[in-house]
């Protein structure tokens, strides 16, 4: 574990915190994209390049575009609503950094004597072969989920016949 890993982990938590605390919904969506980008860097450093590419392209790209387009399709708040919302946010979110700091200190003080049983060593090291041979049912599940998503969106945005 290098200093860069620690920096990336701290950056990940900070960007997630920024996603939550930023008032503007659009900026919050952009901060979420940044969180995904940092996570994909961490995944890449943990020897999982294929998963990192998926995280970068799907989560940072596609999902952020979806969020930002949704935000642009909805109406912004009025000035009174914004004022009310700011007061509510201050009341709700002052706990969060406190919980994180106290929780982190408590968790880091817990005695680290737990031991996990290690599974059998990996027989296949190529992710493509694992996905197509060992986890082929997962692919079937992915196709079904994708079809469910497509039909769901079609039904949700179906226009009523006049």
């Amino acid at each position, binding site marked *: 574990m290098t200093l860069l890993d620690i920096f990336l982990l701290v950056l*990940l938590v900070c960007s*997630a915190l920024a996603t939550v605390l930023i008032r503007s919904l659009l900026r*919050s969506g952009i901060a979420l994209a940044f969180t995904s980008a940092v*996570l994909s860097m961490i995944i890449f450093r943990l020897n999982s390049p294929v998963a990192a590419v998926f995280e970068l392209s799907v989560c940072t790209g596609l999902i952020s575009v979806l969020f930002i387009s949704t935000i642009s399709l909805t109406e912004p708040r009025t000035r009174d609503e914004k004022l009310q919302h700011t007061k509510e946010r201050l009341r709700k979110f002052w706990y969060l950094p406190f919980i994180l700091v106290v929780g982190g200190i408590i968790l880091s003080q817990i005695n680290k004597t737990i031991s996990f049983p290690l599974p059998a060593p990996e027989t*296949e090291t190529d992710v493509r072969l694992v996905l197509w041979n060992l986890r082929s049912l997962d692919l079937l599940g992915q196709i079904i989920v994708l079809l469910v998503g497509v039909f*769901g*969106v079609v039904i949700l945005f179906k226009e009523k016949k006049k």
Partner: protein
Amino acid sequence: MILESFNLFWFFGLTVIMLFVIGLYYVLVTYNLIRVLIGLEIIVKAVTLLLVVAGYMTKHVALVQSLVITLIVIEAVLITVAIGVVLGLHGKNDSLDARRIRNLKG
């Protein structure tokens, strides 16, 4: 499990817990439906990181990568359908506030 790898797991595990808490807190305290989805995304990111770290430590990187790919596909579909539902609700109620959605109230 050697001490070095356990320390590594502990560092990453702490980050996973923090991300999970941030996401869960956001889902619980906010009423805006898009913000709820953003909180859900943060929770899924915590799970993704946990899976990758577990795979790295147990040296099952390929298996874990396939699981992460499946997770990302499911996440993308879930968010797409949820955004469709949110937009539909916004079209009917002119609001993203969960407190104003009373159509399902029996």
